[in-house]
C-alpha cells in the first residue's frame, strides 16, 4: 500500500525527501556544514580536480618547454661566440704559462624538504652518495649560488643555504674586485670584512672568489643593495640580496666536480644532440 502510494505521488515524495535533506543540511551548525562539504567535495570533486590540474600542468609544461627551447637556442648561439673567445684566451694563457681553467660539472637535484629550524636554514635534496655527491659540494640554482652540502646519506643530502647563520662564502665584487666574506647576520645577508676605504657601490654584482677552495670562482651570488660605514668607522656594512629566491626553490644543481673546459667533459652524448638541435633551430630562426 505504501509502495503504491509512493508510486502514485512519486514526484512529490522525491521533492519532500530533497527538501528534508536540504533542510537538515541547512540546520546543522557551521562547523559540521564545513566538515560535510569537505567530505563530500573531496569525494566528488577530487577526480575532476586532479584531471583539471593535470591538464593545466600539461599546458604549462608545453609553454615552458617552448620557452626553454628558445632560451637554449639563444644561449647556444651566445655560447658558440664565447667558445671562440675561450679558445683565444686559453691559447694566451698557455703561452703565458697559467694553469688550465676548470669548469663546474652539475648534477640536477629536486628539493624535497626544507628545515623549519630558523637557526639552521637547510634544504633536503633528493641526491646522495649514490650519485657521487659528498659533503661540502657547492649547490647552485639557475640564478646563482644557493649554499653547500652539510650532510649526505645514500639517497638524500642536506644543503646549508646562504641565509643560514653558519655559512660563510668568500665573494668578489665583480666591478671593483673587492673581496669579502658573505654571511647571514640576524636575517640580513652581509658582505663582511670590507674596509671603509674599499670601493663597493649599491648595484655591484657579487660572485664567488674561489678562495678557500670550496666554491669555484665566478658563480653569481647576489647584488649589493645597501652600503654604509659601520659604527667604528673601520669597515663598511654591505647588504646583499641573493640572485636566487631561496624561499621558492624546487630544483637545484650540485657542483659535483670541476673538469677541464671541454665539450666532451661537460656534455653527454644526449646533451650534445640537444645542443645540435638547438643550433639548427637557432640557425633556422636566424635565416628568417
Amino acid at each position, binding site marked *: 500500500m505504501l509502495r503504491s502510494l509512493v508510486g502514485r505521488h512519486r*514526484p512529490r515524495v522525491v521533492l519532500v525527501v*530533497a*527538501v528534508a*535533506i536540504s*533542510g537538515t*543540511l*541547512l540546520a546543522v551548525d557551521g562547523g559540521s556544514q564545513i566538515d560535510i*562539504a569537505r567530505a*563530500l*567535495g573531496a569525494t566528488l570533486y577530487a577526480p575532476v580536480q586532479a584531471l583539471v590540474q593535470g591538464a593545466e600542468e600539461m599546458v604549462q609544461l608545453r609553454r615552458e618547454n617552448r620557452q626553454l627551447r628558445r632560451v637554449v637556442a639563444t644561449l647556444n648561439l651566445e655560447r658558440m661566440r664565447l667558445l671562440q673567445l675561450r679558445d683565444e684566451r686559453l691559447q694566451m694563457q698557455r703561452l703565458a704559462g697559467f694553469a688550465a681553467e676548470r669548469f663546474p660539472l652539475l648534477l640536477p637535484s629536486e628539493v624535497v624538504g626544507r628545515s623549519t629550524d630558523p637557526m639552521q636554514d637547510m634544504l633536503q635534496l633528493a641526491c646522495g652518495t649514490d650519485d657521487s655527491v659528498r659533503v661540502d659540494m657547492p649547490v647552485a640554482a639557475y640564478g646563482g649560488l644557493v649554499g653547500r652540502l652539510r650532510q649526505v646519506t645514500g639517497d638524500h643530502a642536506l644543503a646549508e643555504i646562504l641565509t643560514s647563520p653558519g655559512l660563510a662564502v668568500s665573494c668578489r665584487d665583480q666591478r671593483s674586485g673587492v673581496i669579502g666574506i658573505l654571511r647571514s647576520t640576524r636575517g640580513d645577508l652581509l658582505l663582511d670584512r670590507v674596509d671603509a676605504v674599499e670601493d663597493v657601490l649599491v648595484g655591484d654584482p657579487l660572485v664567488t672568489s674561489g678562495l678557500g677552495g670550496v666554491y669555484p670562482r665566478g658563480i653569481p651570488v647576489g647584488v649589493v643593495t645597501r652600503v654604509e660605514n659601520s659604527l667604528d668607522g673601520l669597515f663598511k656594512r654591505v647588504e646583499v640580496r641573493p640572485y636566487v629566491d631561496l624561499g621558492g626553490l624546487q630544483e637545484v644543481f650540485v657542483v659535483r666536480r670541476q673538469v677541464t673546459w671541454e665539450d666532451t667533459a661537460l656534455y653527454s652524448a644526449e646533451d650534445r644532440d640537444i645542443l645540435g638541435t638547438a643550433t639548427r633551430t637557432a640557425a633556422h630562426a636566424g635565416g628568417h
Partner: protein
Amino acid sequence: MTWLVSACIAFAALALQATLVPHVRIAGISPDLPLIATVLLAYRRGPTGGTLAGFAIGLGQDLTNPAFLGLNALVKSLVGFGAGSGRDALDVSNAPLAAAVLATAKLVHDLAYLLVFTHLSLSEVFAGLFAHSVPAAVYTVVVGTWILALLGSGRRRESALARPGYARR
C-alpha cells in the same frame, strides 16, 4: 536522454559557472548556468528528474560555499519540481515562452534563496531582488533561451517519437 547525459549537463553547468562565467560578468551580473541546467533537465525528465537534478546541482554549488550548505539544493529542488511539473503546459521550444519560464524560475529561485539567506528580512529580500536578481534574470534569459533552443530540440524529438504513429514504425 540517459542519466549519464543529464549528469554531464549538470556537471558542465557547474564547471562553466566556476570557470567561464566569472569572465563574462557585466557590472557584476552573471548568467545562472546551474539554474538553466535545472530547467533544461526538468523539461527533459519531468518533475521527479527535475527535482533530483535541482537537488544535485544545488548541492554541487553548496559544496563550493558551505556557509549555507543545503540552501541551493533546497531552492533548486523546488525550481526543478516546478519546471518539471509545468513542462506539458509550457512549450520551451517557443522562444518567448522559454524566456518567460527562465525569468520566472530565476526570480522564484532568488526569492526563495534570499528569504532563507536573509532570515525573512523583507527589505533585504527586495533590495537583493531589484539590485541583483532582476538584472541577473535578464542575463540568464538571454543565455538560457539560446541554450534551450539549442538543446531543447531533443525534447521535441523525444515527444514526437513517443507518439503512437512513431512507436509502431
